[in-house]
C-alpha cells in the first residue's frame, strides 16, 4: 500500500550554542544559527523508511521563517520528496502552530499519516501531536519506537514508563515519535547537491488571533553551587566523603 506521508519539521535556534550572560542571566541568542530540531530528524527518518518499505511519497511541512530553506534542503537530502515552508512563525505558541499546520494539512486531502516528534528540545511543550490530531479529528498513536503500515492501518510499538505496548489505528492518523525510534541518516554528498536544486514551496499562513503567554522573564536559573573542584583525587575523595557523611542519616 503506497503511503502519502506528511512529516512535520521544526527548525530551532541551535540551543546547544546558547550561552547565558553570567551577570544578568539573559540568554545570548544573537548570531546563533538555526538547525533542524533533533527529533524532527528522527521523524523525517521514520517517514522516509516507511516510504521505502511501502512506496508512496513524503511531504515535509515547516512552519518557520524565511530562514527555513536550509532545513528543508536537509530534509530533501534525507529523502523527503516535496517541501512546503509556511512563513510567519513568531515564537513558541503551540495552539497557533497547530492551527496553521492543520489548516495546511486540510488542503492535502489524501494523506495517510502525519509523523512528528513527541516533544521538541527547545520549548518541550509536547502538546502539538494532540492539538493537530484534535483539529483534524484523526486518531493519534503517540511515542512510537517503531512504525509499520498494514492495509489501511498504522501499527506502532511504544515504551511507556511501566509497560511496552503495540497499538494500532486506522489511517489517516497522527504518529509522534521518540528519539529512540531510529538513527537519522547522514545523506551522501550527491543527494545533498541534488537537494539544493529542488524547488521549495513557500506559503503564507492562515493566521488567527491566538495569543501566547506574556513572557515576564526568561533567565538562567541561579546556581549557588560551591564549585570546589579537586584535581588531587586523594584530597578530593576525603572532602567528598566528609560532605556525604554529614548528610547520611
Amino acid at each position, binding site marked *: 500500500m503506497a503511503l502519502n506521508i506528511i512529516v512535520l519539521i521544526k527548525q530551532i535556534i541551535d*540551543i*546547544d550554542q*546558547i550561552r*547565558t550572560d553570567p551577570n544578568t*542571566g539573559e540568554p545570548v541568542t544573537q548570531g546563533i544559527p538555526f538547525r533542524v530540531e533533533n527529533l524532527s530528524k528522527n521523524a523525517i527518518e521514520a517517514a522516509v523508511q516507511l516510504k521505502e518499505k511501502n512506496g508512496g511519497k513524503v511531504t515535509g511541512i515547516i512552519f518557520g521563517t524565511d530562514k527555513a530553506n536550509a532545513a528543508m534542503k536537509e530534509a530533501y537530502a534525507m529523502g523527503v520528496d516535496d517541501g512546503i515552508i509556511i512563513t510567519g512563525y513568531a515564537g513558541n505558541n*503551540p*495552539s497557533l502552530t497547530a492551527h496553521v499546520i492543520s489548516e495546511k494539512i486540510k488542503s492535502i486531502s489524501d494523506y495517510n499519516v502525519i509523523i512528528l516528534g513527541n*516533544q521538541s528540545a527547545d520549548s*518541550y*511543550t*509536547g*502538546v502539538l*501531536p*494532540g*492539538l*493537530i*490530531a*484534535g483539529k483534524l479529528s484523526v*486518531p*493519534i498513536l*503517540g511515542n512510537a519506537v517503531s512504525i509499520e503500515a498494514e492495509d489501511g492501518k498504522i501499527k506502532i510499538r*511504544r*515504551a511507556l*514508563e*511501566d*509497560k*511496552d*505496548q*503495540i*497499538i*494500532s*489505528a486506522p489511517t489517516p*492518523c497522527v504518529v509522534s515519535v521518540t*528519539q529512540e525510534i531510529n538513527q537519522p541518516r547522514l545523506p551522501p554528498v550527491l543527494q545533498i547537491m541534488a537537494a539544493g536544486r529542488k524547488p521549495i514551496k513557500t506559503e503564507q499562513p492562515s493566521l488567527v488571533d*491566538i495569543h501566547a*503567554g*506574556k*513572557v*515576564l*522573564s*526568561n*533567565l*538562567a*536559573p541561579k*546556581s549557588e*553551587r*560551591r*564549585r570546589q*573542584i*579537586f*584535581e588531587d*583525587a586523594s584530597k*578530593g*575523595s576525603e572532602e*567528598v*566523603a*566528609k*560532605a*556525604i557523611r554529614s*548528610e547520611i542519616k
Partner: protein
Amino acid sequence: MKFLVFSDIGKNVAEIATKLRDLGEVHSFTMKNQRETVLKSGSKRLVLLEGTPFSGNVSGALIGSDLPTYDYVFISSTPLGREVAGLISASTGNTIASEIFDFSIDNDKIKTKRFFFGGKTIMEEENSSKIVTVTPGSFEPSESAETAQEETLALSDSHEKLIEEKDRESSGTNIEAAGIIVSVGRGIGSKEAIEKIMPLVSATRGEIAGSRPVCLDYRWLSEERQVGLSGKKVKPRVYIALGISGQIQHIAGMRGSKIVVAVNKDKDAPIFQECDYGIVGDLFQIVPKIVENLKK
C-alpha cells in the same frame, strides 16, 4: 474556584491536588487501578476511569464531565496526559500552559514557570490559558483528612486499539524519594562497570540512577532510574554524578539536589559548573577512594 485534575498515574494526581486543594475544590480523574494513591489527596470528588485509556476516549470522558464548569484543567505531563491536553485544547479552543513546574493563580490569570531553551533558562509567563500541563515531580504530595466522594466512569471504545501489552520489569524503586543518589553517565563505559559503583551505593545507602543515554539508548539501567528533563526530577540530599558530562537536560532533572558531587575525567565538563564538590579524574580510581574514606 473549581479544578479538574487528570493523570493516568495516581501519584501525579496527588501531587497536583495537594497544591490545588488550598485554592479551591479539586475533582480528580485517574485510572481505576490508581485509586489508592489518590484517595487521600484532598480531592472532593474522585472519578475512576475504567477501560483501556487512549487520549481520544480519555479526553472524551473529561469533556463529557461538565468541563465548562471548571476554572482550570490540570493534567500531568505524561505521554497520555500531553495528548489529552492537546485534544481538549483543540476541542474547547482554550490554550495550554505547558510543562510548567510552578504556578500561582490570580483570578483569571495564571503565572507559570517552565524551562526554556532546552533547560538553559526558566521562562516566567502570565497566561490566560485554562489548561495546564504539569511536569511530574513538581510538587510534594501530602495526605489530607478529607475523603473523596468516589464514582466510576467507563471509557468509550476508541479508534486506537491495544494489540499487545507487556509490563516492564519494575524493581519498585522510586528514585524521586531517595535521600542519596549515585548517578552514572556514558562515562561509565559499560553495563558491567556499574557493578564497580555498587560499593558506593551501599556505603551511602543510596539509589543508583543514570542519564538518558545510560537508561534509554544503552539500557544499562531501567527507564525508571533515568534522571533528566525527560525522566525523573530528583531532589536528594546528595547527588553524586559519575561520568556525567552535565548536559542541560540532565541538570534540569537534578537541580533541586541539596549537595551535588561530580566526578569526571574532563575538567571542562559542564557538570563542574553545577556541582558543590568536583573531582577531576578516573571515576574507577576515585570511587573506591571515596568508599574507603566513608568507612573511616
